[in-house]
């Protein structure tokens, strides 16, 4: 059963009360309690089969249930058949253990789950009375709950909740009492289980997860941030991206910041597309250009540059975690240069994916074969493949079925079994008779496309998986790549974290993500058209200067988010400002940090700036290192100091050409910040200059501060 598009299905299902016939069951099952669809939901609703109780891999005490009722047959065995059926008393249903424990008539380690006179107890009693059979009357087909609720006021708001299940025999049932609702943020959302109401106490977008049987659906609650609607005149719409973003901003009544200035835009887009700061010539010619299409022209010019290819190779190397194997750098170098070629040649992402997944050969010659040297074994490879290509954390399903997603242990070990045939070490090839043991059965796991189907004997696992992944109907590949690319430009994924895409972690802007996926497919999985779309939007081109009323916003794109530069980009930027390259290991002088093929190349500077080691995902690595060690290094370390006063550095050149301090300050402002000083800054520097006796030292300190200030350190 697929859950990922439940979101969209729900829209139609919830649209009207046309399904609202009274709860019925099929004729043959008149009055019969169905174990699978009525008793199991009780177990889930009251937490009996959760991971902390009987749903744990080892069960709890004597009783073991499947996690969240994923296996009703197993649960039926446990409850009705195990120990000669001692948990059921057909003669006196009230004396049954499965009633006396949860109602705490008998001592129960899990305490009182429901009362003796509750609907839950009544249902179980009735089921036992009818003989405690497993009729398998129906299967759940869909589960609908009004999934998106918008409030008109920011005062605390109450919404009612109503959930309907539709079964394969055509019947429907109101399952609200048996739906489990988990909220992400209990401080903001309280669910009243007596009245089936959600009480929201904070403005913003809140997510709750509704679960019935094995179906899960997110519920979104939107509460505006202010009572009065804001003027939205400043919100321009350049393409469909803006339509979606602006409509959510309007619903939440968050004002948008104004458009970025030319210098702000140029610095941002140059950093994002090429990993570099704009040169003074580029800044001046761009600001003097009065043609209306100059921003689009700048985007196109940079997309075509070779710097774009280098920088995006760097970004993808981080996604792919390209690292040198121990005592073997040739593989990583081959991998990196292959990747560079793919980006430069605009190879569709589907082809890149296929090359990686199907690669074989000597990793020193065949770049993509190094994909199989990223991790250590088929299980880790399955986890990496699921995270990288599908944005899914399959790893949770190693030891138990995924509690928040539809992944099962069969999916996990089945995907691992597909990669069992791949050899390890320098030569990647197919080995015969390779297998992965399924921990539940103790036998070889059957190769399986996760969430889809078990492979036939004759099928070649990797080819079949690859065909499925890159097919037109595959929901994962486009979504995960689009979401990652979006994050590189916007500072936040439409789904966060980007490797945790699941139906219970809904995107902030579902329609937008869907439309971007469609566009990505339409352009044959090529990066550049997608990037052109994103960078052309008003949302991307907004100023990062917040308003008083949108300063708090970190996820709705009311203003551009300032992003810390990665260690590599920052290091290159400092080199460019100071006019001298940094040295990285034994790489030829002049090599840029973003061109380094793997992160083990020695550089104290990159270490102190917090470069990502790529042993794990690089998400968030920029913010992990504290500010204190970085500032200590700026003050006393080599990063700036050695090159700042060097006789062949840019500052020495400027001083030699006997430019005035003002001209030199201007030059370094353009280099470091991509703009000229404003009036207040001029006044400040002129005052300071008057008080300084040594112009050379004064200018060194100015340049140092330009390479240290917040405006320099961030892409904003």
């Amino acid at each position, binding site marked *: 059963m697929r859950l990922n598009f439940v979101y969209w299905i729900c829209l139609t299902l919830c649209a009207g009360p046309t399904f609202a016939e009274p709860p019925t069951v099929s004729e043959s099952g008149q009055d019969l309690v169905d174990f699978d669809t009525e008793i199991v939901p009780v177990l889930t609703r009251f937490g009996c089969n959760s*991971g*902390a109780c009987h749903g744990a891999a080892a069960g709890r005490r004597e009783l073991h249930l499947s996690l969240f009722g994923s296996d009703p047959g197993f649960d039926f065995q446990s409850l009705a058949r195990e120990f000669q059926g001692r948990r059921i008393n057909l003669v006196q249903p009230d004396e049954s253990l499965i009633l006396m424990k949860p109602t705490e008539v008998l001592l129960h380690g899990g305490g009182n789950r429901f009362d003796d006179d509750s609907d839950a107890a009544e249902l179980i009693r009735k089921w036992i009375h009818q003989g405690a059979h497993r009729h398998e009357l129906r299967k759940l087909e869909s589960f609908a709950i009004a999934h998106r609720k918008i409030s008109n006021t920011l005062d605390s708001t109450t919404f009612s909740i109503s959930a309907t299940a539709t079964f394969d025999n055509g019947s429907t049932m109101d399952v609200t009492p048996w739906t489990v609702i988990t909220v*992400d*943020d209990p*401080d*903001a959302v309280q669910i009243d289980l007596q009245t089936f109401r959600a009480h929201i106490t*904070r403005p913003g977008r809140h997510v709750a997860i509704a679960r019935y049987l094995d179906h899960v659906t997110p519920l979104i609650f939107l509460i505006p941030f202010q009572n009065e609607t804001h003027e939205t005149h400043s919100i321009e719409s350049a393409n469909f991206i803006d339509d979606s973003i602006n409509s959510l901003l309007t619903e939440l009544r968050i004002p948008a910041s104004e458009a970025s200035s030319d210098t702000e835009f140029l610095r941002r887009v140059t950093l994002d597309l090429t990993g570099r700061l704009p040169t003074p010539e580029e800044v001046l010619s761009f600001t003097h250009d009065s043609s209306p299409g100059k921003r689009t022209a700048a985007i196109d010019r940079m997309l075509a540059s070779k710097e774009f290819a280098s920088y995006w190779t760097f970004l993808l190397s981080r996604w792919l975690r390209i690292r040198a194997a121990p005592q073997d750098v040739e593989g990583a170098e081959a991998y990196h240069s292959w990747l560079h070629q793919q980006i430069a040649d605009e190879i569709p992402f589907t082809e890149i994916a296929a090359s990686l997944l199907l690669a074989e050969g000597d990793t020193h010659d065949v770049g993509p074969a190094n994909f199989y040297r990223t991790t250590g074994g088929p299980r880790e490879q399955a986890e990496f493949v699921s995270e990288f290509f599908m944005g899914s954390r399959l790893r949770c399903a190693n030891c138990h079925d995924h509690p928040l997603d539809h992944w099962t242990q069969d999916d996990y070990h089945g995907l691992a079994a597909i990669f069992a045939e791949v050899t390890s070490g320098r030569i990647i090839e197919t080995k015969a008779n390779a297998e992965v043991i399924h921990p539940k059965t103790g036998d070889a796991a059957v190769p399986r496309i996760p969430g889809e189907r078990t492979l036939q004997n004759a099928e070649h696992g990797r080819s079949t998986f690859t065909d499925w992944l890159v097919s037109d109907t595959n929901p994962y590949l486009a979504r995960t790549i689009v979401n990652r690319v979006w994050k590189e430009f916007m500072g936040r994924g439409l789904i966060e974290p980007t490797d945790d895409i699941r139906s219970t972690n809904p995107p902030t802007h579902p329609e937008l993500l869907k439309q971007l996926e469609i566009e990505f497919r339409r352009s044959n999985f090529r990066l550049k058209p997608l990037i052109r779309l994103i960078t052309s939007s008003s949302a991307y081109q907004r100023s990062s*200067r*917040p308003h008083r009323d949108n*300063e*708090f916003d*970190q996820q709705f794109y009311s203003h551009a*988010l*300032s992003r810390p530069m990665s260690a590599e980009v920052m290091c290159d930027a400092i080199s460019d400002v100071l006019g001298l390259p940094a040295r990285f290991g034994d790489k030829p002088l002049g090599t840029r940090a973003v061109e380094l093929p793997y992160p083990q190349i020695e550089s104290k500077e990159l270490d*102190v700036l917090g470069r990502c080691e790529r042993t*794990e995902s690089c998400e968030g690595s920029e*913010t*992990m*290192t*504290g*500010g*204190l*060690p*970085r*500032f*200590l*290094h*700026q*003050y*006393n*370390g*080599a990063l700036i*100091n050695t090159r700042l*006063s060097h006789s062949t550095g840019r500052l020495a050149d400027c001083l030699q050409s006997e430019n005035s301090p003002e001209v030199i300050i201007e030059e370094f402002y353009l280099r470091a910040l991509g703009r000229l000083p*404003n009036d*207040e*800054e001029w006044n*400040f520097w002129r005052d*300071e200059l008057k008080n300084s006796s040594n112009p050379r*030292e004064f200018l060194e*300190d*100015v340049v*140092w*501060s*330009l390479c*240290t*200030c*917040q*405006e320099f350190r961030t892409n904003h």
Partner: protein
Amino acid sequence: MPVIRSTLPHQWNRWSRRDVLQIGALTAFGLSFSDVLRLQRLSCAADPQTRQPAKSCILIWLDGGPSHLETFDLKPNAPREVRGPLESISTSLPGIGISECLLRTATLLNEIAIIRSMTSPLGEHNLGTHYLMTGYKPSSVLEYPTYGGVCAELLNSESALPPNVAVPDFRVGGGNLTGSGFLSAQTRPFSLGADPSKADFQVRDLRISRGLTLDRLNRRRHFTTELDRMRSMANGQGGTADVVDPDLQRAFDLISSSEAQSVFQLNDESPELRSRYGPKSVGQSCLLARRLIEKGVRFVTVNHHGWDTHNDMYTRLKEGYTGARTPVGLIPSLDLALSALIQDLKERRLLDETLIVVMGEFGRTPKLNVNGGRDHWPRVFSVALAGGGIQGGQVIGASDASGESPKDRPVTPSDLAATIYTLLGIDPKLELQTPDGRPVRLTPPEATVVDELIA
């Protein structure tokens, strides 16, 4: 994006207007602000009803999850696959045994309280670490601050040293934790990035680089501060001091402070004392931790790596390397470090004001696995505490016969958090503000102080 704090630091909130006026009056008589604080403390100490709270905390973090069954909760009578390879030895507490590798610690149990009934549902490194270090289970909407971050936020410090320091680093529990949670980045631990047990130990970039002077560095700091301030003015953010990264100033303070320069000189200690702490990283880190808290650092995390013993547990925990004549593994190294720290602090009369906490993110499976190791087990595990006003010489709670579940008096990491905060003189019900103005209690509402732990 910088977190902009709109409220005053919280210690201010705890003083009434009258207190502030008194402080003002006293300072007018030539007493410094810190004198006033000292006077306040003295007056507290004079009152027999109120105990002086601990001033600082040293957390010895056993990263990876230490086996309770090999350290503080041995099961000598259990079957072999549960009992494991280490023997239980008697201690200064009659009837209480701990690991044979905790030889010295065993003689000091009068100073130590062991909780044997810690319990948590989180058996993954990052999740468990978040729970144990913050008192909150991780949530997708909010990252909570660690004890160290809260101490940095709430406890005032008169030192140029950062209030929250991690030795040798803060790479804990898989490395996802920043330490500051929703508090400002400045409450994060200052991670030394250097190991005090190494001969060339030196905190990176603390000394002024050749050719520069403190005046030059100060001017650079000034220029940068002004650039940040002018930018925030231009951005309409009011040009308040908040927009300047306080770490810029703090780094400068560190460089210019002679105290900061000298505190890291472990060679100032006698070779005899240095060897008492043991030659390993955890030992020398504990020694440095003592030097740091003496200079006013509020919270030191001594990060002891390597406790994730899925395999070769015996060698890793006891011997250190196969066939070692004198055991130099994780537990003997911890034993040297912990016993030396307790005794050293006691000799310096600092033990009462310094809380020592020894823990990791969870315990380990009751049954040995096929690789001679134990896997993650959060359902029951042990934590040890010493100094800082705890009642030593007791074991709180117990696990069942196989060390699988708590037998009585279960203590959650939230309860432990409430207890640690109480010992540090911080009200566990105190509310902090997130940057978006949400009030968050220091500990969850269900957290209960472990009363018998407090002397």
